[in-house]
Structures are given as C-alpha cells and as structure tokens.
C-alpha cells in the first residue's frame, strides 16, 4: 500500500496540470462531450414528450376545462367528449386487480423471502421474472379465449346466484367486463409485486427475525408481526408500482373489457378504460378536437403513472436503506 499511494497522488496533480489541448488530443474531452450529448438527449426527449402531450391537448382543455373529467358523454358525432367513463373504468379495473393481486403477491413473496431455501427461492424468482416478461398481448389472447368463456360459464353463475342482490354482481354477463379485465390485470401485476416485495423483505436485517424468535414467537408471528411491519413501506411501494403498471396497461384490457363507454355498478358489465379508448380510437379520430381529447386522456394517464411511480420509488428507497442501515451497524 505504501508504494501505491504516492504514485496515485503524484499522478493526480500531473493529470490536472496537463493543458486542455493535450487532453483534447487524448480524446478525453471529445469522449466526454459525445457521451454528454447522448445523456442530454434523454432529458431532451423526456421534456419533449411532456411538452408535446401538453400542447397537443390544448383544444379540449380550452373547450371543456375541468368538465372534461366529470362528464359522461363521449360522442364523436356531436363532437362532445367527457372522460368520466374511462377514468371510472381504469380505476375500477385497477382496484379489482389490486384486491386480487396484493394478497397473492405478498403471500408468495413472504414464502420466497422467509421460508423457501435460497436455491428454491432463486429458481421460483427466475420463473417469476419470466412471467413478468410475457407481453401484454399474450395475456390478452389468453384472456379472450380462456378467461372470458370461464367468466360466462363458471364465475358469473357462481357469484351471481349467492351474491346477486349486491349491485356489483348483478347480471347479465357477456363474459367481457370490469371483473374480467381486473382478473387479467391482476395476473399481469403479480410478478411485479412479488419481485419488489421479496427484495424488500430480504433487506430486513436478520437480527429482527432472530430477536422475535428468541422471544418465543412462532415462525409466522416473527414474519407477520416483525418482518412485514418493518418492510411495510417498501411493500406499499411495490403495490404503488403495480398500480402504475395496471393503470397504463393497454392491450390485455382492450381485449377483455368490452369497450363500452358506460358507467355501471356491476362488475360484470362491459366498460372502457383510458388506455383502451386511446388504443381503439386513435387511428380513427377525425377532427382535431377528437384527436386532442384522446391525447388529453394520454396526458392524464401519464400524470397518474408519474405520481404513482415517484411515490413507489420513494417508499422502496426509504425501506431498503432503513434495512441496510440497521444491518450494517
């Protein structure tokens, strides 16, 4: 070490005192400039994206203002546009998907992080990663041909008979609808919840578990009353992340939600979502107001996912740092 340190120290000032010209000849400044331009272009593209969404949706913002978000009429013929049915559809399907995906995902991540031996946990995580790589149009394909018929023949009769008095489970069922979309979306977001929650749970320091076990708690008690509360914020983060994915989900939802701009209390009724209406109507949008109304919907979607992603990242960072901080002590 003693011989290395002086060398580095003497190299430092020597490098600094080289003239700009010689640095230029070595190519350092050029390389720096080129890579900077590429890095800066990422910022430029992002800014441009937001700017483009904003100015391309000026017309409906002027014409409808905030009414855009609370009116239900979506009528291209009369040139009247209200986003409420789409916002409703997006929210309902997201909530349904989270209700299904969160317990399953967190349960699975507890198993992977706490119970399974490392090798099994890694293998299962590998499959979960592959599951996350399945494109949404494939989920849509399976949704159309497997879930929709299943919905019509099994799930609808099963829920409608005992619970049909509730407005959520009133008939009739066409197979497509909010619940179908919610189920397909749930399957799609489960891998995200599992991956992130597992990571967060694994970052909980060992002494937390050991302390709980030493006090005589069972394995489940140490997991549920100590480890999970410790990782709570990070798990919340994983849920927000999943929610952001669910909101922006397009293809699978478009294929199974029924594409009807209506607000219905029944989960079996067909509906529409923000992403689905953009996917279906964008190429056919004649007239500036129509097209720009769709772009404003895109802007809404962008802002929603932007906020959720930001929150999710914050929560995950807070928890994993809390874990590693305590663990290092």
């Amino acid at each position, binding site marked *: 070490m003693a011989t290395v340190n002086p060398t580095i120290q003497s190299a430092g000032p020597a490098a600094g005192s080289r003239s700009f010209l010689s640095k230029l000849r*070595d190519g350092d400044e050029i*390389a720096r400039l080129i*890579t900077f331009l590429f890095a800066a272009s990422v910022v430029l593209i992002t800014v441009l994206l937001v700017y483009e969404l904003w100015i391309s949706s000026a017309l409906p913002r002027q014409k409808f203002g905030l009414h855009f978000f609370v009116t239900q009429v979506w009528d291209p013929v009369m040139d009247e546009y209200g986003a409420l049915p789409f916002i409703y559809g997006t929210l309902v399907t997201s909530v349904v998907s989270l209700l299904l995906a969160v317990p399953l*995902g967190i349960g699975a991540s507890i198993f992977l992080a706490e119970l399974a031996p490392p090798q099994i946990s890694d293998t299962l995580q590998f499959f979960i*990663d592959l599951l996350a*790589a399945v494109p949404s*149009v494939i989920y849509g394909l399976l949704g159309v041909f497997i879930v929709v018929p299943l919905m019509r023949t099994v799930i609808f009769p099963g829920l409608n008979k005992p619970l049909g008095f509730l407005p959520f489970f009133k008939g009739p069922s066409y197979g497509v609808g909010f619940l179908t979309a919610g189920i397909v979306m749930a399957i799609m977001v489960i891998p995200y919840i599992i991956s992130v929650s597992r990571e967060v749970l694994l970052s909980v320091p060992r002494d937390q578990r050991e302390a709980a076990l030493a006090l005589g708690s069972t394995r489940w008690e140490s997991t549920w009353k100590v480890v999970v509360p410790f990782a709570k914020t990070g798990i919340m983060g994983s849920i927000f992340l999943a929610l952001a994915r669910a909101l922006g989900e397009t293809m699978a939802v478009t294929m199974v939600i029924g594409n009807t701009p209506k607000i219905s209390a029944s989960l079996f009724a067909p509906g529409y979502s923000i992403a689905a209406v953009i996917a279906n109507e*964008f190429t056919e949008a004649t007239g500036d107001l129509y097209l720009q109304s769709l772009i404003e919907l*895109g802007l809404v979607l*962008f802002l929603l996912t932007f906020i959720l992603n930001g929150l999710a990242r914050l929560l995950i960072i807070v928890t994993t740092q809390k874990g590693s901080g305590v663990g290092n002590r």
Partner: protein
Amino acid sequence: MSARVKWRRFVSNFMLTLTGLCALVSVSVLFLILGYLVFNGGTSINWAFFTQLPKPVGETGGGMANAIVGSAKLLMAASLFGVPIGFLGGIYLAEFSGGAVASVVRYAADLLNGVPSIVIGIFAYSMVVLPFKQFSTLAGAFALGLMMIPITLRSTEEFLNGVPRYLREGAMALGASKWKTIASVVVPAAYRGILTAILLALARVAGETAPLLFTAFGNRFWSRGWEQPTASLPVMIFTYAVSPYEDWHRQAWAAGLVLLGLILIINILARTILSRGIAVPRS
C-alpha cells in the same frame, strides 16, 4: 404443551403453507400460459406460417411472413436508435458526470421508463407520423427505441459502476487516457452485464403492441420500405384475436406461441450470459 402454544403452532404452519400455495399459484401461471399456447398454437405452426403472406379475409391458410420480417426490422431499427443513446449516456453517467447533471439524466430516464407504452405511441405519432403524414416502420422503431433507452442507460451505468476501481487505476497508471481506459478496460470488463441488459430491453419491446398501433400500424402485404407501414407479430396477434374468424384465431395462437417462445429464449439466454454473482437489475 398448552392449548395456546398448540394453536399458535397451528396458525404458524397454516399461514406458512398458505404463502407456499400463493407462490405455487403465481409460478404455475407461467406454465399454464405456455401450456395453453403450445396446446392451441402448436398444431398451427407450419411451413406456411413462416413463409406466406396473410390470405384475404374468408380464405383459410396463409401465414405471417410479413409480420415476422416486420417485427425483425422494427427491432433492428429500434436497437440502432435506442442502444447507442442508452449505452453512451450510461457511460457518461458512470464515468464523466458530476452531481446535478447526472441526477437530472437519471430522473428523466426513470420517468421515461414509467411512461405507459400507449403514451409513448402518442408521442411517436406526433413526432414521426404527423410530420411525414403517414404511418411508417420508422415511427414504430422510434417508439420501441424510446422504450429501450432507459433500460439500457440505467443498467449500463450500474454495471460500469460495478467494475472494480483498481482496474481503472491500473490502466491509468500505464498511461492510458481516460477514454482509452473506458474503451479498452472498463467497458470490456462490464460487457456481459451490458449485453444482458440490452437483450432484456429487446425482449421487453419485442412484445409491445400498444406503441405500434398508430405508428407502424399494420400491413397485409410486404412493407415496401422504411417509410411504409409494416405488419408486426404483436399487432397481428391483437387484430387476429379480436376478429370473428375461426382461422384467424388459430393463427393468433400460433403467432402468440412464436412470439412468447422468442421472448422467453432471449430472456433465458440473457440471464445465462451473466455469470453468477452479478445481479440482473430490474427495469
């Protein structure tokens, strides 16, 4: 043993079994998907599927040769656009940047990564389709390339940061300039990780449908050039699956099997390229 302890044991075992079931159900979805695709699509994959154009509506048979070539063209052009920006930008972040600029770039990349793919489609539409007044392969490639940038950028940065300091110091002590150190020592040391990340990014955009709907659009024939609309596998699956024709459903399953097979193979390949010990960063 008191009844209370017994009860607690029972609850513990019961809940832990339940979590195991959750994991089992989640993982089995992957095999269910694969099983259904092979079962429904396997019989429809034949020579014609890979070599023929789609037949006109009503006629059975035909294939998706144009969509397969279209997807390949889209992915190639998307990589040519997205990978250099992500890779060189990542080098800047890891090697040259100081403080504020880097965090702005990182923030922008994370933001871009979270943008729903359909919104990326809108952006590509207004940037490429509107000025040229037509749907084109290039517009589709632009949209897919945009989605590759953040993944490539962040993982390039991550893997370069993972290269040990003494390698850099060794090269510099031999008199290499900074960029020479980067080009001949640092990047080669991290290339496995970076390659993995690029492959994963490619696999991710290969299945994207939403951004292609109003950029590359679709085409029942061969695309005549980069400025012409083109068919692609994901969009074909979508249009065929929601169509009312039995024969198209059959082909949608076949296309789904081909697409998913391709994506899973790239994924597995990418993860095996990485030697053990280096974690694959999640997008």
